[in-house]
């Protein structure tokens, strides 16, 4: 018996070392990006402190971090090059820009799924070797999720979306700075087939020449424009690259979505626990407050608040994204609170709550320790579904010309910009972002469904309320 245990531990140690080694390798591949990200964040924080107007030391560190080689960077696998009559210059291994870009994008996703696999392997190792208990209730939940195809589909979509947001700068064939914000400050070289020589042109000019404006002038998906630039999703009506726009746009959608859902989940969970613990009048007053908030038409409130607060300092933060997240959180918590209150009330009836009260545990500790674990599952379900709703709402506001301020890319604005060309050859400008929004929202809802079925095997997927409709935008 003892012998078997030591053996098991020893083989576990070997596997742990291998697992740690792979983790280190995966980290080193992206160490430069991680270091740069940390330094950038530190500089921002340092500059935010009043009285500090330069962070020379940190800037030095940042440039050092930038020089660390990173596998999945535009520098390591460049795709922006030009044809000089005999071959491609400045691209990865002299490959065509489309191929170089495809290699980089594929590697990004391979890397991301590698990380996911590494985490899963780590958990399994922990479960088989290090955890004392052979079985915990969580195991069943995970096993059920693993055999839930619809939920797994959602998980994969959500994971790909998050990867898109995290690796946005590396995924685009060009950068936001070069292609959009500062298009007249950058120039590119291209092969002019008429004169038979390499010419140089300002990006802004090139954009004008490669705009998608219907049947006469169009750069569709998976094609090159006249300046040798590859566009996986084609160009927009102003000649900018749609793929780059969408990749960077996914960041703002995710950040606003997570921030607003995180905030409303915090509000909803603490209020649900409070009303379930104290019941009676406390509960009743919260029902009244939430009913009052719910009674306000959310879309109109959103439009009003974005307009009224449009000129204030708070709208400056993150292109107005922070303000949007706040508005979503303070108008949207009621739905989640309603959904959490039932389960919280159920838990509050369990005897271990009374047992804890009888030996004098503080109410806040009882709520956190003995009640919260039972509603976190529901938090995940409704959080996932609300996140989909939030993404639709953000896109809806941008479509209406509100919300995230241009030129920060946002999916809804792409739909808006392309709507005049839907019936022409430039259909891709509206359609591709529209499909992506639908796919991502479906993914979040599917994940929510999967988590619900995993947590509560008795729950019936049909006939349950769906929070996916979200803010109704």
């Amino acid at each position, binding site marked *: 018996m003892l012998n078997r245990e030591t053996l098991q531990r020893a083989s576990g140690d070997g596997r742990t070392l291998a697992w740690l080694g792979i983790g280190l390798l995966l980290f080193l591949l992206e160490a430069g990006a991680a270091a740069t990200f940390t330094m950038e964040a530190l500089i921002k924080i340092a500059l935010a402190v009043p009285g500090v107007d330069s962070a020379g030391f940190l800037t030095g560190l940042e440039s050092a971090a930038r020089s660390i080689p990173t596998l999945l960077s535009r520098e390591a696998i460049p795709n922006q090059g030009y044809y000089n009559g005999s071959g491609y210059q400045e691209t990865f291994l002299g490959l065509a820009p489309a191929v170089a870009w495809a290699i980089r994008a594929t590697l990004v996703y391979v890397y991301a799924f590698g990380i996911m696999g590494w985490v899963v392997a780590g958990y399994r190792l922990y479960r088989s070797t290090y955890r*004392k*208990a052979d079985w*915990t*209730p969580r195991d069943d939940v995970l096993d059920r999720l693993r055999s839930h195809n619809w939920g797994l589909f959602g998980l994969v979509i959500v994971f790909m979306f998050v990867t898109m947001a995290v690796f946005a700068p590396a995924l685009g064939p060009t950068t936001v700075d070069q292609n959009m914000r500062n298009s007249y400050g950058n120039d590119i070289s291209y092969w002019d087939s008429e004169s038979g020589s390499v010419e140089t042109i300002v990006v802004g000019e090139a954009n004008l020449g490669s705009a998608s404006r219907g049947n006469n002038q169009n750069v569709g998906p998976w094609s090159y424009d006249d300046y040798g630039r590859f566009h996986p999703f084609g160009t927009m009506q102003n000649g900018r690259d749609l793929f780059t726009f969408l990749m960077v746009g996914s960041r703002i959608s995710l950040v606003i979505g997570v921030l607003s859902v995180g905030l409303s989940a915090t509000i909803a969970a603490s209020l649900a626990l409070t009303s379930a613990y*104290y*019941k*009676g*009048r406390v509960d009743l007053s919260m029902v009244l407050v939430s009913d009052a908030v719910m009674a306000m038409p959310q879309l109109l409130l959103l439009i009003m608040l974005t307009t009224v607060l449009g000129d204030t300092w708070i709208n400056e933060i993150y292109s107005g994204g922070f303000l949007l997240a706040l508005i979503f959180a303070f108008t949207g918590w009621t739905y989640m609170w309603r959904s959490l209150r039932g389960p919280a009330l159920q838990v509050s009836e*369990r*005897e*271990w709550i*009374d*047992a*804890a*009260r*009888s*030996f*004098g*545990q503080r109410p806040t500790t009882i709520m956190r*320790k*003995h009640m919260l*674990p*039972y509603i976190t599952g529901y938090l995940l379900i409704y959080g996932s579904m609300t996140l989909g709703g939030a993404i639709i709402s953000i896109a809806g506001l941008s479509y209406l010309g509100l919300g995230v301020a241009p030129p920060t890319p946002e999916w809804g604005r792409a739909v808006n910009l392309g709507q005049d060309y839907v019936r022409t050859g430039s259909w891709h400008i509206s359609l591709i972002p529209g499909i992506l929004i639908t796919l991502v929202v479906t993914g979040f809802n599917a994940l929510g469904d999967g988590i619900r079925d995993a947590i509560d095997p008795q729950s019936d997927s049909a006939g349950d309320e769906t929070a996916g409709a979200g803010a109704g935008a």
Partner: protein
Amino acid sequence: MSETLLEVENLRTVFHTDKETIHAVDGVSFDVSEGETVGLVGESGSGKSVTARSVLGLVDDPGVIEEGSIRFRGDELVGGNWDQHRGDIAIVFQDPMNSLNPVYTVGNQIKEALRIHQGLRGSEATEKAVELLEDVGIPDAARRVSEYPHQFSGGMRQRAVIAIALACDPELLVCDEPTTALDVTIQAQILELLDDLQREEDLGVLFITHDMGVIEETADRVNVMYAGEFVESAPVDELFEEPRHPYTRGLLASIPGRNAEGDRLPTIEGEVPTSTSEPTSCRFAPRCDYAFGACEEVHPGRVRVGDVDTDHEVACLLYDDTFEETPPEGGVEAHGGESA
């Protein structure tokens, strides 16, 4: 004479619902002294558990202690003063699966109580938790302490619950049907354990059950509860030998094995009414075979019966001299099986 721990006087706990006010506990009084076991027995819905919860201050909204006093070592608890005696009164609930939180290890839950009441943390707390598990008779406690409740059997779980109660170092233990969810052999073990612990620590115990057999084994003094009131209170031997109230007699008659004659077990027809108003009659009258005219008009007060030195009280008009009917001699048979 040992010191009195708990004094409950004229306790009234009511629940205000939208439709009506339910008098769950309607004016009960009892004392528990050190080393004494006071039994509370009655059918489901008679108000036993609400009494227990009232004593611990666990009555939830919309319930409220409307009247009466609960004193622990002379300190009044009603009015939100439970915190000064938290841990002095501990409770053991009916269903051990329900009173242990399944997401934490048993040790974790014992340590939670230890931390609050004895200020122990870390390895010190773990040692103490193992010690407590050993005290309640869990073998291999050092390993068991880091296991989850689902890895324990029913009897072990109840032992763990008792260990948690002991971690508070209580003086009074309230047992709310602690053996109802267990099978008979385990029940006997748990009762024995409670008995040992009580003698070791000189605990006062308030023991609540619907099982007359268990009460006979454990209690020193028994209060029979019906529809929120005590209908009979007596020392255990006296109560079992000379039950006075027709309800008590009915309860005793329905214990299997006590009545040899008759091939069917006698039962008490009907069920406990929900008291929604001040009593104007005897609440047991509709089910009582000995009810007479006055029972429908007068709410019986408590009268002292039996020998002068035995503390035996009963709330029944049969024993009130101002009314004419005489109590039955010998034993009251509840509805015989033959007529059922």
